């Protein structure tokens, strides 16, 4: 009879916790593709890059190093006027061009974006701070996908509303945010051009580079002059675009605060509007959900793009019976998230977009601590320079806390609990916003029930932050109106008679 090992007398690790240490550290793995940046970027009007009339420039910096990248021309009202006039002139031909021909240009733009994918990914990461793996695997491919999708629609518009007459608006004014600079540009420009409109677009002040590089793509694609015009600048430039008499439709993505100002200024005009504004999404976890995958979805929902996502799952609603387990799993998961140089291919969380945004996040996190919520972060080292924030989780949050009500727009998750489905719905809907929500459960019928009860434009089931050009995206309540993507998004760029 052979000797035996002592029968399962467990050799217990008293702490009984996993060790995520530095046994196997990863060396830096920077993306080295050349972003082909210029020292100075002019505004793009009528197919050419021209200096602003005032001759003024402002600096754009890399939020990960705080180093200046380039000077960007500051467009004022007279530049916007020139852009709108160019767009109006271009519309005479572009609006009449057969859809099939417009489609060819869009296909060409999509393919050029793919050709220049690495260059755009690096530029996007340097200017905005998002990790290279996201700009490389999400932003740029998804931007190209939007152009491909709408290229396909260009000659099939009549099928959008059978039996009705469709016509483009003419000149469309568009203002986009800094969280997905190139992708938001694609969401706006692709459907507008497919429908036969011409565009004047203002990128966000801190992230103008990829928009202006897109001007180079338009030139390379041979797009007729004036069909796309890009005017860089700050709030005043945006206001000039929105209020210009020639823009017959405006599309805005950004904060609810600015959205309200725009709507006020356009009240009483004939302009059509679509607004994609803030959010404070509830991500709801029922006790029968596959917890590890739910945790993965929670992490993806709040830490994707440092939480700079309007549909971020920033309020986690967990059924009370599993709250401790979910928190423990979340803490273990964020222990292996890597914060640092956005150009490093292994970075999970890059830099916060601006000093201003970092201050806002820091302030809200302080209020969370002051109001008595329990704060956890992964304690990782942060780079000495640049704007960085650790992935942070608040437990024991109640509905009255500021961190449960205000949009933080950063890597900060607030955990609330619920006991019954009704309570979950009540808490999820108790917000001014209504952009998105997530439901995690093994029970299909509960998913369907929740999706009808939740007041949100998008409800994800057993997943989070999934986007596709074919799927309309947009909000309700103070999260805005109108849709982007899909048939619905395209219809917003046409008048139906």
């Amino acid at each position, binding site marked *: 009879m*052979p000797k035996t*090992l002592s029968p399962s007398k467990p050799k217990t690790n008293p702490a*009984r916790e996993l060790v995520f240490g530095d046994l196997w550290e990863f060396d830096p793995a920077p993306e080295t593709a050349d972003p082909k940046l210029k020292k100075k970027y002019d505004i793009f009007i009528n197919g050419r890059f021209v200096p602003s009339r005032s001759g003024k420039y402002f600096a754009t910096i890399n939020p990960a190093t705080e180093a200046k990248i380039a000077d960007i021309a500051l467009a004022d009202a007279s530049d916007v006027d020139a852009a709108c006039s160019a767009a109006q002139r271009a519309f005479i031909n572009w609006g009449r061009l057969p859809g099939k021909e417009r489609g060819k240009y869009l296909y060409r733009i999509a393919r050029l974006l793919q050709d220049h994918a690495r260059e755009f990914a690096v530029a996007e990461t340097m200017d905005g701070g998002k990790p290279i793996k996201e700009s490389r695997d999400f932003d740029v491919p998804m931007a190209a996908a939007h152009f491909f999708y709408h290229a396909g629609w260009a000659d099939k518009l009549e099928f959008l509303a059978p039996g009705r007459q469709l016509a483009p608006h003419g000149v469309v004014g568009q203002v986009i945010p800094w969280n997905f600079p190139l992708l938001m540009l694609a969401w706006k420009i692709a459907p507008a051009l497919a429908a036969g409109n011409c565009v004047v677009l203002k990128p966000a002040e801190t992230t103008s580079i990829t928009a202006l590089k897109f001007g180079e793509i338009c030139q390379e694609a041979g797009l007729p002059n004036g069909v796309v015009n890009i005017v860089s600048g700050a709030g005043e430039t945006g206001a000039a675009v929105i209020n210009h008499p020639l823009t017959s439709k405006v599309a805005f993505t950004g904060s609810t605060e600015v959205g309200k100002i725009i709507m006020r200024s356009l009240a009483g005009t004939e302009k059509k509007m679509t607004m994609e504004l803030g959010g404070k999404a509830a991500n709801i976890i029922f006790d029968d959900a596959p917890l590890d995958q739910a945790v993965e979805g929670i992490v993806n929902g709040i830490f994707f793009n440092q939480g700079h996502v309007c549909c971020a799952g920033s309020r986690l609603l967990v059924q009370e019976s599993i709250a401790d387990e979910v928190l423990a799993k979340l803490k273990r998961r964020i222990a292996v998230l890597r914060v640092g140089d956005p150009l490093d291919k292994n970075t999970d969380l890059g830099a916060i977009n601006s000093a201003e945004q970092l201050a806002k996040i820091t302030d809200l996190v302080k209020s969370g601590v002051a109001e008595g919520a329990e704060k956890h972060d992964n304690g990782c080292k942060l780079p000495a320079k640049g704007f960085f924030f650790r992935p942070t989780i608040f437990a024991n949050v109640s509905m009255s806390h500021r961190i449960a009500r205000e949009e933080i727009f950063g890597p900060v998750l607030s955990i609330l609990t619920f006991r019954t489905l009704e309570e979950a719905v009540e808490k999820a809907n108790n917000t001014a916003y209504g952009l998105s929500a997530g439901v995690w459960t093994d029970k299909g019928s509960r998913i369907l029930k929740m999706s009808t009860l939740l007041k949100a434009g998008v409800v994800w089931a*057993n997943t989070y932050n999934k986007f596709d050009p074919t799927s309309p995206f947009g909000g309700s309540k103070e999260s805005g109106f109108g849709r982007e993507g899909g048939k619905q998004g395209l219809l917003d760029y046409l008048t139906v008679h």
Partner: protein
Amino acid sequence: MPAAVKAPASLRRLFDEIGTVDHVGIEERVVKYTTRSIKKKSKVFGLRLAVSMVDLTTLEGKDTPGKVASLCQKALTPHDTGGIPSTAAVCVYPAMVKHAKKHVAGTKVKVASVATAFPSGQAPLKTRLAEVRAAVNDGADEIDMVINRGAFLSGEFGLMQDEIAAVVEACGVARLKVILEVSELETYHNIRAASFLAMRVIRPNDFIKTSTGKTSSNATLGNNQVMLEAIRDHFLATGVPIAMKPAGGIRTAKQALHFLIAVKETLGDEWLNNRRYRFGASALLNDLVRQLEKERTGAYQAPWNFSEATEGY
């Protein structure tokens, strides 16, 4: 036992206890491992770690003492340039154990033997246990057994666990690796369930293992992840650490690094060693050595320097 309380009821009870797995979510998680970029020193560390975790395997009808001798030599010295560690073990059929033992006795390299009517397990329990004892008597340090998949799939969990417990006893001091044969269990749900059933009857630092390598699909990042998460949950609940061995289908150094990243980010540093993690592989070792040589010399060696053969270079 009345037929009515068989498979569905007992499986459901088990899932109420251990929780379920979402297929799509697992696949999404593991894709992130493949985008990790391992360079320079961290690459060399990972490759050397992987070499030290290989169970260098030959499981063919045509195995001879001569081939086994050659295999052992390679396990001891994977390459003639210094600094490359020996592998964790050689893995052979029971009839070859005594031949292997001659060559590796007294070294760090262990002799592992598949037993229990590998790969199907379709022999009487008595026969399977006798095979285990024979291998251990011939000097096997580790036994790789297959579970009774038929018993699992028909809901007879008690039978499946009793058989594993019997093999544990027959092993004596030998480490046990329990092969779930994931391709025959088919779903991630079943893999999680079988992992828990096995872990509850084996000893600390015994292994659960994905596959025999004899069926169409073997170790993948997906089923590796499901098993790592099962090990984690079991450890956190009981304090009992269980080791893991993916086997079959891991042929390249790059794949091996992806599996190791999964270990690093799921179980942490205490599993990044060959007591807690192994690779069941044959062709993998040559690619690991090829990549290490490339890191050492700065250039890839000529293609004829490394073959796909397990026992040669």
